[in-house]
């Protein structure tokens, strides 16, 4: 059952865990971009979620409260972005980049006294008997609740965007804000909601890093995960299930390269270390080379500000 010294069951189980932060953040950004807003501050919102979640979990002793705190932290920072771009009509790209830098600095300040503290543990959700079933056990039943929640969120986002009135309005705002406005929808309010939702999911993803994956707080703990999430949205051509595939692909390669090293692979470490990024670039190139389809799927009003009196 092993390939080159690597057990595929364990590999799949661990890539599902490794992918949770980028998956959640990518989903949030997907919804934001579907509403026509390009928020490049994902990294900043993730790290705010990481520190807010960590602080909440440490003080309350409850990991669940920690995740709620993380989501609130991410959403709070995204509201800064929403205010600047939707009310003051500032450039979204510049504001998003500034948001990342601001988030990194602010989280570092907030985390000053939280170095070296252990957060409460988030355990596996299901009983051990289920987890011991061969193959299916570790892959399907062996995870903590956030892993299942992340997949549920994919399904929910897909369903809402595809099959509900809310999804239709959101997409209308993202495709043609003027038409949506003419129909009587409050474009900026809807966008505000989408931005806050994106921030909350990014914060949730960040909290997963500081509460489950590492689990501790250090400066810059997200280490670029937010940028990967942004790439995944494009990779997924704004489709939720493809975002899941993208996130698992990326998480899978990251886990695989460390496993290959541990299994004594003869491939030089440098190639393994850069492989996740290389594959991301390759996939993006391939996706956008088929002139049109991927590009066409981008929301038409992406990155444009809306003002009713224009």
């Amino acid at each position, binding site marked *: 059952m092993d390939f080159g010294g690597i057990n595929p069951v364990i590999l799949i189980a661990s890539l599902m865990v490794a992918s949770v932060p980028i998956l959640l953040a990518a989903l949030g950004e997907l919804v934001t971009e579907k509403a026509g807003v390009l928020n490049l501050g994902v990294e900043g919102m993730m790290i705010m979620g990481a520190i807010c979640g960590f602080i909440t979990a440490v003080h309350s002793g409850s990991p669940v409260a920690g995740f709620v705190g993380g989501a609130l932290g991410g959403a709070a920072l995204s509201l800064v972005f929403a205010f600047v771009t939707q009310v003051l009509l500032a450039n979204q790209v510049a504001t998003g980049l500034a948001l990342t830098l601001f988030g990194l600095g602010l989280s570092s300040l907030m985390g000053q006294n939280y170095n070296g503290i252990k957060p409460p543990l988030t355990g596996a959700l299901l009983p051990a008997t289920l987890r011991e079933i061969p193959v299916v056990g570790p892959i399907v039943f062996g995870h903590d609740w956030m892993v299942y929640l992340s997949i549920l969120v994919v399904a929910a986002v897909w369903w809402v965007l595809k099959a509900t009135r809310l999804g239709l309005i959101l997409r209308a705002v993202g495709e043609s804000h003027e038409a949506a406005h003419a129909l009587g929808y409050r474009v900026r309010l809807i966008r505000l909601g989408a931005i806050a939702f994106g921030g909350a999911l990014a914060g949730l993803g960040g909290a997963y890093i500081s509460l489950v994956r590492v689990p501790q707080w250090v400066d810059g703990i997200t280490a670029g995960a937010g940028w990967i999430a942004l790439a995944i949205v494009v990779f997924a051509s704004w489709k939720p299930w493809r975002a899941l595939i993208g996130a698992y692909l990326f998480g899978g390669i990251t886990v695989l390269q*460390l496993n290959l090293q541990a299994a004594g692979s*003869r491939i030089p470490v440098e190639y393994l270390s850069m492989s996740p990024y290389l594959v991301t670039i390759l996939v993006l190139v391939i996706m956008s080379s088929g002139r049109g389809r991927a590009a066409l799927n981008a929301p038409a009003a992406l990155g444009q500000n809306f003002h009713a009196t224009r």
Partner: protein
Amino acid sequence: MLRRTLLATAAAGLGLMTAGGAMAAGMDKVKACFVYVGPIGDGGWTYQHHQGALAVQEAYGDKVEIQYQESVPEGADAERVLTQMALGGCNIIFTTSFGYMDPTNAVAAKFPDVKFEHATGFKREHPNVSTYNARFYEGRAVQGTIAGMMTKSNKIGYIGSFPIPEVMNGINAYYLAAKKVNPNVELSVVWAFTWFDPAKEADSAKALIDQGVDVIAAHTDSTAPLAEAAKAGGAVIGFGQASDMEAYKPSPRVSSIIDNWAPYYVERVGALLDGTYEQSDVWAGIAGGEVLIGDITDAVPAEVKAAAEKVRDDIAAGTLHPFTGPIKKQDGSDWLAEGATAPDGDLLGMNFYVEGITGDIPK
């Protein structure tokens, strides 16, 4: 002839006097500065250096002023930080990571009156640069003994930071000691290419555990590998690295290597205060008290504990050297003959695995 000798002698005497005069002068107040590669809260390497800095403050009180900068990247940024410290009135600057070697020497050239102390490096290009190091590999031999006896899967792991001599010493000493007590042991090395990135360190530990490794030694700075090992619920053990990491006692942390810099820092700053400071190159180990072996917990059986403590005591007494021949290199060529011990020069430039370790060293 006579006159010439006389002149030379007088000149030499004068030189000695001025030199002696400068030395005996001492200082009333010393500003001691520290450059850290990670945050003090890493619970490991940097934390331990900062404990040393606090000990200096404790020892001399008002006579010293401490300044430090955390999370300084190795490279160009370090040079800027060092220059700023030197301009800011620091009398002695401790640079506490291998990667500060060239920046330290470069800045030292510009500030001949400031003393520079570089940890774990070997370049002393200017008279005001000293180096200090600890024989961490002695501690690795103790850990290897525990690892070899404790592993059930016969697979032990090592999370490497960068392929520099200090880390190579650690890997080889760890493996040789484990092999000595358990001939079937296999070592997996994962290179993290960072000193401090908890997410990556945790992932590395997880990859090792996924591969069946049940004893993990880390040569990176955070407690993340121990946190990952703790998730295995007692099946995987590890060691505190650089600091005691007692939060993970009694398991997964079954022992630790503690870098005890405090005595050295106190001594060096003291020398600057009383005027006896000289350029030096210090490399002390368990015997010198720079490397402490943290408490071996009851999570290991008594005979394992006894064996590990014997290795520790023998190294301290000088009757055991972790690198004692016959040892071959990975490619099968001879390194140390029967009974020979490794010369310091070989250790300081070590760039190979010993025979029995699989895999390549990244270049």
